[in-house]
């Protein structure tokens, strides 16, 4: 532990334990750093640097992506590129591979992590809506132990989550899709490469044996509220119903009326509302099609 003093204000943690120790010791003064694609720009923009940066990128064993029975587990250091290219994710959670593939640029995807994307808690975070649609959970670790939190309830507001400064996300996990389930991600941005979403949306659908009736749905949208949100109204409309253009229209209209976006430099509230409808219906359509095709791939 004395190492820290010698290492000054930058701690390159080699193990989870080392990271947790540092976080525990420095509390509010410390900040976890993963891909640093959010953290460094933020610190430079505001001129406010954290006293202790706990870089976790050297914790080699946190980069895994694996399937344990039904559950896909993604280590906190898996990058957007890792996830986008992962056969496990492509097969079992296409929506997430899709979302990761649309984050920023190759350079950003090669450094940025999913855990960082969640912890940055941007209302526009692309992987957040995909993870919410998958019903994903985060494994949160601290010196005190471990806890599990659903991604959909982790966000408190822009840049705010339920984690305290001594906690670390170590894993993201969710059930892999079964045959007859489908998922999709859609994003609208001001330009075609390297852009933050004006609105993004993700849908997960589970169909019954007939492959026509929706048994279960999870639908999430981003950039239309202080946090990424689940749109229950749309889910309720779909659940138990036969999927068709009519239902999709109804569900996406309900979503449009449920969300409460604001105006900002990327888009006006009215437009965001309308786009919520468009993106959600596209996502539902694509997810349905994938579910009906039996594999949830493209």
């Amino acid at each position, binding site marked *: 532990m004395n190492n820290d003093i010698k290492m000054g204000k930058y701690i390159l943690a080699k193990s989870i334990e080392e990271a947790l120790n540092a976080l525990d010791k420095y509390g509010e003064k410390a900040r976890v750093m993963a891909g640093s694609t959010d953290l460094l*720009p933020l610190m430079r923009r505001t001129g406010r640097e954290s006293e202790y940066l706990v870089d976790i990128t*050297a914790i080699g064993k946190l980069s895994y992506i694996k399937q344990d029975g039904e559950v896909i587990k993604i280590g906190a250091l898996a990058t957007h590129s890792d996830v986008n290219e992962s056969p496990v994710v492509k097969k079992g959670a296409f929506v997430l591979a899709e979302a990761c593939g649309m984050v920023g*640029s190759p350079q950003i995807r090669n450094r940025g992590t999913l855990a960082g994307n969640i912890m940055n808690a941007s209302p526009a975070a692309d992987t957040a809506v995909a993870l919410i649609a998958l019903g994903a959970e985060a494994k949160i670790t601290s010196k005190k132990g471990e806890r599990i939190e659903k991604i959909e309830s982790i966000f408190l507001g822009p840049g705010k989550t339920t984690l305290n400064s001594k906690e670390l996300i170590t894993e993201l996990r969710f059930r892999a899709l079964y045959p007859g389930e489908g998922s999709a991600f859609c994003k609208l941005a001001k*330009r075609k*490469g390297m852009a933050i979403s*004006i609105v993004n949306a993700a849908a997960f659908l589970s169909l019954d044996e007939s492959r026509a009736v929706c048994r279960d749905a999870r639908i999430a949208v981003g950039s239309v509220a202080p946090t990424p949100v689940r749109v229950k109204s749309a889910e309720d409309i779909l659940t138990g119903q036969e999927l068709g253009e009519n239902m999709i229209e109804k569900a996406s209209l309900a979503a449009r009326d449920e969300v409460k976006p604001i105006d900002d430099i990327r888009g006006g509230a009215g437009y965001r509302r309308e*786009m919520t409808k468009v993106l959600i219906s596209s996502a539902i359509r694509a997810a349905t099609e994938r579910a009906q095709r039996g594999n949830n791939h493209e």
Partner: protein
Amino acid sequence: MNRKVKFCLNGTDIEIEVNPRASLLDVLREKLRLTGTKKGCNMGDCGACSVIVNGKTTHACLTPAGSVEGKEVITVEGLAQGDKLHPLQEAFIDCGAVQCGFCTPGMLLSAKALLDQNPAPDVEEVKEALSGNLCRCTGYKKIVEAVMLAADRISGRVARSESILPASEPGATKMVGKRVKRVDALEKVRGEAIYASDLNLEGMLHARVLRSPLPHARIKNIAATEAEKLDGVSAVLTAKDIPGENKIGVLGGPFKDQPILCSDKVRFVGDAVAVVAAESEEIAAEAVELIKVEYEELPAVFDPVVAMAEDSPRIHEGSNVVAHRKICKGDVEEGFRKSDVIIEGTYKTPFYEHAYIEPEAGVAEVDAKGNITVWAGTQFPSDVREEVARMLALPFNKVRAVQTKTGGAFGGKLDISIHCYIALLAFRTGRPVKLVYSREESIMASTKRHPFLIKYKTGATKEGKLLAVEAELIGNTGAYLSYGPAVLTRAAVHATGPYNVPNVKVDAYTVYTNCFIAGAFRGFGVPQVAIAHETQMDKLAEKLGMDPVELRLKNAYAVGSVTSTRQLLEHSVGLKKTLEKAQDIAGQWRKEVDNKSKDAVKKKGVGVGVMWYGTGNTGHPNPSGAFVELLDDGSALVLTSCAEIGQGSDTVLAQIAAEELGLDDIDRVRVYSGDTLTPYARGTSASGQTYITGNAVRLAAIEAREPLFQQIAQDWGAVEENLYLEAGVICLKGSDKKIPIVDAIKRCRSLGILTMGHGSFNPDATPLDPETGEGKAYATYSFATHVAEVEVDTETGEVTVQKFAAVNDIGKAINPTNAEGQLEGGISLGIGHTFMEEMVLGNKGTLQTSSFAQYLIPTSKDMPSEVSTFIVEEEEPSGPFGAKGLGEPASVPVTPAILNAIYDACGVRITELPAISEKVFTLIKRGRAIVI
């Protein structure tokens, strides 16, 4: 606290002591002095800093140095093996994928990471792989081609030596018209080209500027003592420390209105108040924070229409309406009376940022004799010299401006930026001083394109003959003029478009506001008016039920036409040729467009846009000079202050000199440019370097070879006029007499005769009458017609440009590859301006788009899948080998063509830019509501 970090850099294990929190980029550049990796934003937004870490392309600016422990890092310096270039570097040179070169190292690394993983990518994969690397110059097309070519060469699909360039005709040795490789490409692909931020002088101080947080305020007091006391601070300077004139302005004379450092008032958020020089950037930044300025806030005005009112707050002493340019020809009232149809329209364009990837940077040093040198990126070294000299009250010849490689400019580096600050600090401290703007400071302090408010009225007969045009242009020049009145004048002259209109009335107003400064930006007011006249033409065509190209052809300028300033066009008017070619293309595309299914969500459309553009300054002298010396071994030196900013002037000037000197190898000519110890040259602006400096070089080259011809003619007893040069040999017409040029030079030297020449050229233009605008505005004009095919997603309002064709009459294309590169880059600029770019000010005049995360410019993925360029060579007799201008004409018609295509697709007229998806969506919806 520093720490040892061990990693493998370009194949060599190294261990260095660094602050682990410093970025890998700063460690590479500052500590290891590997300056090939560039800093364009320091925020992950531009990709100029891309390096490969453990096989993956990564932003060095977002990589903490401490985290590369044990990793493998590759930078641009690691690509070539000694003299042997990496195939990507070779392909970038061969394909003409390098312009200013600032994005090149990062591009190469992203491309290498791709090819290492995927040796046979398709075009879409290449575009995706490069989508995090912004390039403002090339339009990405040649970069993508280069990556594809390198992939083929690496895999052996094509032989390394196989040229992708079309072979020149047999026997043709001429250098003009050849696809000569850029003379600066090699150093740029190797990461060895030195931009100002790469400079590091012994004992150098670092500067920082204190800027106003308020849009309009009186300065009551500046307290600098706290800052001065800070350890490591050498100087804190304000207006009172300026020994000479504290006024700059690129137009000179009465138009110099900008203080270098404000003393009484600040006029926009970002106006400079004080400068600091300190031992490090960090100390300088801290010192700036310690300067306390007391302001008394004044009412500010941001809307030019409001600013025009008598009772509006005054930004300078006089009226906010600084200039009113009038053009008056015939009788517009009469014209409208006779018209069968009248079309009216109002058009609005925003402030645009140049967004060159290299932020402003420079270093200044004073020598023991009191001579001062400023090394910096600029488009106008001669002006840097003069402004610095005036500020320091020095004779011009004691100031030397040396243009370092300039990483894009587009008009934004014509004005003084860092230059006076560093010169003043160096002068006062006696030490070299360096200043590099951050991206945010660059966006805040640099000039922008003038927003225009245009009211336009067109009258025509039912046959489609234009009878009258009346236009009012209001240009928001912001807090200072920069080029303001010149921009509005050019806009007024070009306001009709290249069409015969007997009755014209144009009123163009340059108006001060408390916005940032608007100046020159690739088109000088013409892009704004082209949006108006081209939309008007389309509306007219629709009303008359005519084909839009037919309508244009009917009114198009031709030799013999008289412009609205009553200039007779005597030659080189290739407009109709561009229109005819465009008509073919548009016709073909229209045939393929299928919008039949009524309720299809995606609608396609085709549109055209036309422009004309006068080469050189409007009705003003703007000469350039050059020296050429033919050396003993037959190689040549060309000296001129002409600034190569990525557009390729060094290469074109070398070709022109080589042509006149009969040299068939471009390496036999060295162009030494951009240094004020060489002859004066006009700024790189108004698309004039090929035409104007090219002519100067040509004349100098002719004078340099003159003694050879004289001597050899005398030796042969021949008439000098019958001698000519070919492939390095002087020949005599109608005889087999020949002498290699080297032998001829030897012969002259033996007689004590030197072979050198000077040349200067000033385009033939005359001042415009203040009341009517009458005059010869330009010596020559370029013309163009562009065609766009778009697809509009009517559900989201998103527009995709699927195909784009540019047909430009540029006179002789001295270097066709360069010319295509200009066109492709112009297309990408136009796409950015049409769809995503806009500088936004908050209600207090503060900037909302201060970074590349908010001010978006096109990425490789925003470019159409099909981009084609066609060059019409309607030769200009007064141009060097028939050349005229291209840089700006490349971009002007892009937005008009796209806007007309959007209308064609979905019936929505965008008259206020940019056409963001939200706007298109809203208009489509509104249109539907009206229909219902």
